[in-house]
């Protein structure tokens, strides 16, 4: 034995799991949706994605290096995820400088101003997205008129009393038509594959589900949040007379439920807390879509869900061993 002995407190072995492994698995899970975006929107999707990811990484690097003066944390992949998710929430024809503003806000304000990875209250990508949506409402809701699939035309011509303009998302069409479109014209397979207009990442619902399966297999996330969000949203939309399938597949709900609501940092810790949080997001999404001014409500719903996460954490504590109930005084 020639080495210097290392001393540390127990335990002395460690799982092979790591933050890096988890983050890179999320990146892998995002790839199918990216592929669909490339197929639907062409090279402009790649451009927006690279721009957002690059700007996010650059912002993180600069802030870590010059403001926090601590070792660079880019290799853990969290900035890449933020960049990808931000790009997935943008239309493909957004001007390049808006993408950069979104990325700087997402990382700089959404994440770094709270202290970096693990400290933020809200999902950084959504902070960036909502900032852009409120600052540039027109640009953020202008969709590429060139993207016009058979599905969109079918729905548009079927929507009675609506100007069948191209370059609108399915949800906007739904909202404008007062949810009176001819369901028989909706081709579910095309809808699932995602051949339609919208934000980059939200169109390919099936691809997102493939990502979900990957994350479940690699145990990056548990089923609780996605199932709670999608289940509650489907149930509420069914109860209010809408088509649950359309609500789940047509907008960003799938993307939000699988990739954004499940962000570790901003979601509750216990499984029960996660279910409450998921149901809250699902219900809020449908309420905003139904009765709010926006055709899309997932971003706001998730940010609101993030805001109550500390509260949920406080009341949904694990049941302590040897305690009949969670004692009230502990929560206080």
């Amino acid at each position, binding site marked *: 034995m020639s080495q210097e002995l290392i001393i540390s407190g*127990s335990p002395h072995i460690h*799982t092979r799991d790591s933050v890096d492994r988890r983050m890179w698995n999320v990146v892998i899970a995002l790839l199918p949706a990216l592929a669909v975006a490339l197929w639907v929107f062409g090279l402009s999707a790649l451009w927006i994605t690279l721009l957002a990811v690059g700007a996010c990484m650059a912002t993180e690097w600069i802030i870590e290096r010059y403001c926090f003066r601590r070792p660079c944390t880019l290799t853990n992949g969290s900035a890449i995820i933020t960049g990808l998710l931000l790009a997935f929430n943008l239309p493909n024809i957004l001007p390049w400088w808006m993408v950069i503003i979104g990325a700087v806000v997402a990382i700089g304000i959404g994440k770094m101003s709270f202290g970096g990875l693990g400290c933020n209250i809200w999902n950084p990508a959504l902070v960036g997205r909502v900032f852009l949506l409120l600052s540039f409402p027109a640009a953020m809701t202008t969709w590429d008129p060139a993207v016009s699939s058979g599905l969109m035309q079918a729905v548009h011509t079927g929507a009675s009393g609506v100007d069948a303009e191209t370059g609108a998302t399915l949800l906007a069409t739904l909202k404008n038509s007062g949810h009176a479109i001819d369901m028989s014209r909706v081709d579910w397979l095309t809808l699932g594959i995602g051949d339609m207009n919208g934000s980059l990442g939200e169109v390919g619902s099936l691809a997102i589900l493939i990502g979900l399966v990957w994350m479940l297999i690699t145990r990056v996330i548990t089923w609780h949040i996605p199932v709670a969000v999608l289940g509650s949203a489907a149930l509420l939309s069914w109860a209010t007379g809408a088509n649950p399938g359309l609500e789940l597949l047509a907008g960003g709900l799938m993307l939000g439920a699988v990739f954004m609501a499940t962000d570790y940092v901003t979601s509750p810790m216990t499984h029960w807390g996660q279910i409450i949080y998921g149901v809250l997001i699902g219900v809020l999404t449908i309420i905003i879509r139904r009765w709010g001014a926006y055709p899309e409500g997932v971003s706001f719903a998730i940010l609101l869900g993030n805001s109550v996460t500390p509260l949920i954490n406080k009341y949904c504590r694990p049941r302590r061993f040897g305690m009949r109930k969670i004692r009230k005084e502990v929560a206080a």
Partner: protein
Amino acid sequence: MKTFTFRKGGIHPPQCKNTAEMPITPAPQAPLLTLLLSQSIGAPSKPVVKPGDKVAAGQPIAEPGGFVGAWVHSPCAGTVKKIETVRTPQGYPAEALTIERDPQSTEVFSYPPMNPADASSEDLVARVREAGIVGLGGATFPTSVKLTPPKGMTPRCVILNGAECEPYLTCDDRLMREHAPEIAEGAFCLMRAVGVRHCYIGIEDNKPEAIAAMREAASQYSGMEVCVLRAKYPQGGEKQLIAAILGREVPSGALPVSVGAVVDNVATAFAVQQAVVLGKPLTGRVLTITGEGALNPGNYYVELGTPLTSLLQTDERVDKIIGGGPMMGRAMSNLDTPTTKGLSGVLTMCLGSMPDIQPCIRCGACYSACPMGLEPMLLARQSENSDWEYAARSGVMDCIECGSCAYTCPSNRRLLDWIRYSKTQVRKLKS
């Protein structure tokens, strides 16, 4: 086959029980034995011999320093050399007696053998105490104290802990395979000492040979039963074992006897059998030498006080040596130290480097892993902020220090280090 387990939390670390097929062999006898006076929880023992005294093998050489304390016996015949200050494996000074072996002397000291079937409970407990028996699983709590339940509490069963859920360690497994009848008889002694009719022997399902051997041995006694446990860490934790077998949770802050259980390790039961039936005090134990860097892995019967340097042969690459298992064992800084009653294994590791500590991402992995339903991330944060009152309210004292949280943390945060610190501070605050 019905398997038992506890419901909350737990992890599945790699087993690495590489030495499971290696029979117990006696370790070479060292010419000089060093017996620490504080080998058990409680006050250090007080020497009852002087330097220069001749002692027989098994002769008591130090008496308990208090009610919670244990006798220490000489493992060999020889001469007491001196009482000196040595270093513990963690480098702290401790008092010890050194005994020089006399190879010519065959003098043996033993207690009169007893028949457990007709000995009284008091006699059995007294024998366990005078034989210096402590919990051999690693906690080193004096067994005689455990067998004397506080007033108003009536034990209903004895649970024998053969779970051995720590990775790498195989000493209990081998002991059960090779000495099942003795362990069963020891369990019978414990049942008689506590005055109960039932005994459950919990063994994890990754030790089928041990289960078969113990089943056969237990069938000789009425009320003794082997319970097969699902392999999951920390199945061998006292509270988890009781929850698995009896389906009852020991209330927070209470002793296991409050749900009617007295839990002892199988190695302790073996030592009890030796003390009662053969009259032999505790002077040795089985320990596992294992790990990537051990050149002589195996299960050894060692005399207490044997220096580790004479037992262990290590590889060049070894950079961490642990006394006990990898989950709860303590890293050693000093190898010039003797074996003690609580040392169940020596694990040599070749780590190379330690992974970086990253910020907590609040993934909740530690919440799911904690077998006590605590919030390790929160407790660690409270400890970092020195908020001891909040930590006490959050149940930090319920922590069994199993290490599941720190094992499972993807950010590799040293959660248990902070929680353990918090426990010492809360204990200080209370007193």
